[in-house]
């Protein structure tokens, strides 16, 4: 009964989505305020029914209702309850239902938090989001219904959730990632609504800025969580593979990053308007492209869902429809947009333009590498290739170095024009200090100078010190430390968010460069009592013992780690065999630290108690994700800047004044 209720709720949600797509928009066309106002109620109804539908599927999992095919394929009675709840998004159908629910959540949030928006604008935005939701629900109902039953009930036990997914990572990574992905639909809807209205002024950018920052914050932390999860779960210590699915989430992030910067310029200066609109369309289109790549199985990937041409086709058609109509509208309306202001060679506008170009070019490079296997196959009539990480590193890393270089002067530059002399004065000391730090720090710590550590420390210091200099200059006129601190506070949450996010980028970049250069690993054959030395530490293998988990049995190894003869950690890597699928899983054990991770994974038994072991020493690896967390807080802080509320009220007053006159 409950699955049918969920299915029915989903159908009702579809009806409401259709109404939301049509009615408020018709209200705008016919200048009917009642119809326009219906958008709020329809958004609320849509969300409620999506939530109901989602709750029903969750209930089916909790009740072990194996008559539902999706539950039978992805759950098991022995699964702990928290994995049952997250198994809902453990495979294609349910994860797309979560995606759609999150879409409903964003729609409702926009409806609730936009009371200051002109009614017609809000109606357009919500209608666009409704239209997108129609596509998502249709996709669910037509190709990926999670409520489908198998009768008579074939499975008594359920095939179990893929053991790789039985992990904390599954609980947090997909919801965060999807919230980010889908969040770009808000910026997209605002862009389309602005194009439809022809009112592409600074107000549009201001309205969509907090939403875009929010989506970006979620996407940043979602990607970081995914990377962390892959690192400890896959058992071989890598944290980024340039895998098609990773790229699928990374491309919207890159364009989203360009978008939040471009929106800033459009809001503050009224320039780059058509470019910003294009970026908003691109960011969401890339999110959809990501969904296509992940769910069509056209590319070999770490996380491909099983291949189903019908699903791939549906998303492809939907993607082409969305992108096509958005671009057609853009082509019709973009000439209307006119720049309102001028800027010169060394202004913040130009710096942000450079940021945008580097980010878009990087996105194009990643896109090329990701889709090239498909292009090649169709060009050569079936030739199969893969594009390896060396390609991505060779193209991406130089571009990022360029981006990090611009990141220091950009916050210091002033709008419109910046005196070159002034910029030089502020930055020359920073440059000197960065070069000195870059040479001294790696040398002092490791006794050697290597390219990437030196360069990354220089760039990290370059960004950090420039932010510091900028903050100090902004409170130059305040006397005494307390006054200066108060002065910093008045700079606003938007400024603070920028600082945090930029620090996050610096930390991630440092983490990537340092861990890539300094990480060491060894695959060794160890019998009990054998030990292996890696760097300053010795790993003593004491053999394995059997262990019984709730739904698996395991061989648990014991590895004692010594440094200078002192024991510093005991690690217990496991080799698990999950009973329902008879699937073997490596469960690495990690001794985490701010400056280094010790990472041990069991390979395979080699007879007579000996095992293949993989031992990693990974300095600074946590910085990669810690930077992502900083970026998230930066994005959140900027999104909740009070300035938007204040300016919203001002917009409202201006509008009321305009209506009254």
């Amino acid at each position, binding site marked *: 009964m409950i699955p049918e209720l969920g299915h029915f709720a989903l159908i009702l949600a579809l009806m409401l989505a259709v109404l939301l797509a049509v009615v408020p928009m018709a209200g705008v066309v016919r200048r009917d305020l009642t119809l326009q106002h219906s958008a709020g109620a329809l958004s609320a109804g849509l969300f409620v029914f999506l939530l109901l539908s989602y709750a029903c599927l969750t209930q089916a999992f909790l009740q072990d209702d194996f008559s539902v095919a999706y539950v039978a394929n*992805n759950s098991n009675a022995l699964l702990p309850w928290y994995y049952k709840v997250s198994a809902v998004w453990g*495979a*294609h159908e349910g994860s797309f239902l979560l995606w759609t629910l999150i879409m409903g959540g964003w729609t409702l949030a926009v409806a609730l938090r936009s009371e200051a928006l002109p009614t017609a604008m809000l109606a357009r935005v919500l209608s666009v989001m409704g239209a997108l939701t129609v596509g998502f629900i249709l996709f669910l109902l037509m190709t990926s219904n999670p409520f489908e039953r198998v009768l008579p009930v074939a499975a008594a036990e359920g*095939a179990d959730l*893929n053991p*790789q997914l039985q992990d904390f990572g599954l609980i947090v990574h997909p919801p965060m990632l999807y919230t980010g992905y889908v969040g770009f639909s808000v910026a997209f809807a605002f862009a389309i609504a602005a194009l439809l209205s022809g009112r592409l002024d600074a107000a549009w950018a201001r309205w969509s800025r907090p939403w875009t920052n929010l989506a970006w914050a979620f996407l940043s932390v979602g990607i970081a969580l995914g990377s962390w999860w892959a690192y400890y779960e*896959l*058992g071989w210590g890598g944290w980024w*593979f340039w895998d098609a699915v990773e790229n699928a989430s990374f491309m919207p992030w890159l364009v989203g990053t360009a978008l939040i910067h471009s929106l800033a310029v459009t809001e503050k200066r009224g320039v780059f308007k058509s470019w910003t609109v294009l970026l908003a369309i691109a960011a969401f289109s890339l999110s959809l492209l990501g969904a296509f790549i992940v769910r069509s*199985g*056209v590319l*070999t*990937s*770490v*996380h*491909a*869902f*099983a*291949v*189903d041409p019908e699903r791939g086709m549906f998303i492809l058609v939907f993607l082409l429809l969305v992108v096509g109509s958005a671009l057609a509208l853009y082509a019709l309306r973009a000439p209307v947009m006119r720049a309102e202001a*001028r*800027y*010169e*060679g060394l202004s913040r506008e130009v710096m942000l*333009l*450079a940021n945008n*170009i580097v980010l878009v*070019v990087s996105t*194009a*490079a990643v896109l*090329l590498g990701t889709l*090239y296997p498909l292009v*090649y196959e169709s060009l050569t009539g*079936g*030739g*199969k*290739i*893969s*594009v*390896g990480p*060396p*390609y991505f590193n*060779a*193209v991406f890393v*130089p*571009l990022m170095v360029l981006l990090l270089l611009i990141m220091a002067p950009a916050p210091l530059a002033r709008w419109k024009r910046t005196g070159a002399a002034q910029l030089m004065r502020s930055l020359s000391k920073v440059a000197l200090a960065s070069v000195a730090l870059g040479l001294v720090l790696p040398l002092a710590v490791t006794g050697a100078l290597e390219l990437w550590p030196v360069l990354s420390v220089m760039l990290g210091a370059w960004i950090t010190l420039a932010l510091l200099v900028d903050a100090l200059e902004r409170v130059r006129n305040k006397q005494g430390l307390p006054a200066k601190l108060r002065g910093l506070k008045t700079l606003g949450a938007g400024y603070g968010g920028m600082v945090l996010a930029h620090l996050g980028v610096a930390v991630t970049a440092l983490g990537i460069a340092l861990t890539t250069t300094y990480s060491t*690993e060894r*695959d*060794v*054959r160890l019998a009990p009592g054998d030990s292996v030395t890696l760097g300053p530490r010795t790993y003593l293998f004491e053999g394995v013992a059997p262990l019984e988990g709730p739904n698996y049995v395991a061989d648990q190894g014991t590895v004692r780690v010594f440094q200078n003869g002192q024991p510093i950690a005991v690690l217990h890597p496991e080799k698990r065999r999950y009973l329902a*699928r008879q*699937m*073997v*899983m*490596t469960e690495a054990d990690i001794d985490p630290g701010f400056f280094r991770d010790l990472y041990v994974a069991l*390979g395979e038994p*080699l*007879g007579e108690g000996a095992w*293949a072991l*993989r031992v990693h020493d990974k300095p600074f690896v946590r910085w990669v994700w810690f930077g992502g967390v900083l970026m998230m807080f930066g994005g959140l802080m900027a999104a909740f800047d009070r300035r938007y509320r204040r300016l919203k009220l001002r917009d409202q007053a201006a509008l009321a004044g305009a209506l009254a006159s």
Partner: protein
Amino acid sequence: MHPKRKQRLTLVAFLFAGVAVAVGLALFALNENINLFYPPDQIARGEAPVDQRIRAGGMVLEGSVQRDPGSLAVRFTLSDMAGHDVPVVYEGILPDLFGEGQGIVATGRLRANGTFEASEVLAKHDENYMPPELAELAGRKAPEGQRAGMATLDAGG
């Protein structure tokens, strides 16, 4: 020059420089880093290039896996189950679902003596998942199934 035009010119110059650099880098890097995929029959017929990084895929022949007792070296035979076999050597830890009768994709170099030296072995990580390369090789569509994954292991980084 008119400031407006100057502004446009900066923009165009920026864009042009950016795109030129990126295209140059990308084409160079792509040229260097494409790994062509070869099924066992093409390798057995000598159609695959020697000493170049390529990918080979097929089934691990039953009874062909031999481990070196003192190290992590392993050799096995990659087969298309239609009589074309390629001997493979690998040193390192194999993925969890590597096994005889399983489909795998290996990245490495073909040596002149016809042996494939793998530096990376990918095994499918779900009984329902089939990498696109292998699906075609096996002459059938990959079966419908659930979420799946590939586990990869990279020998020596």
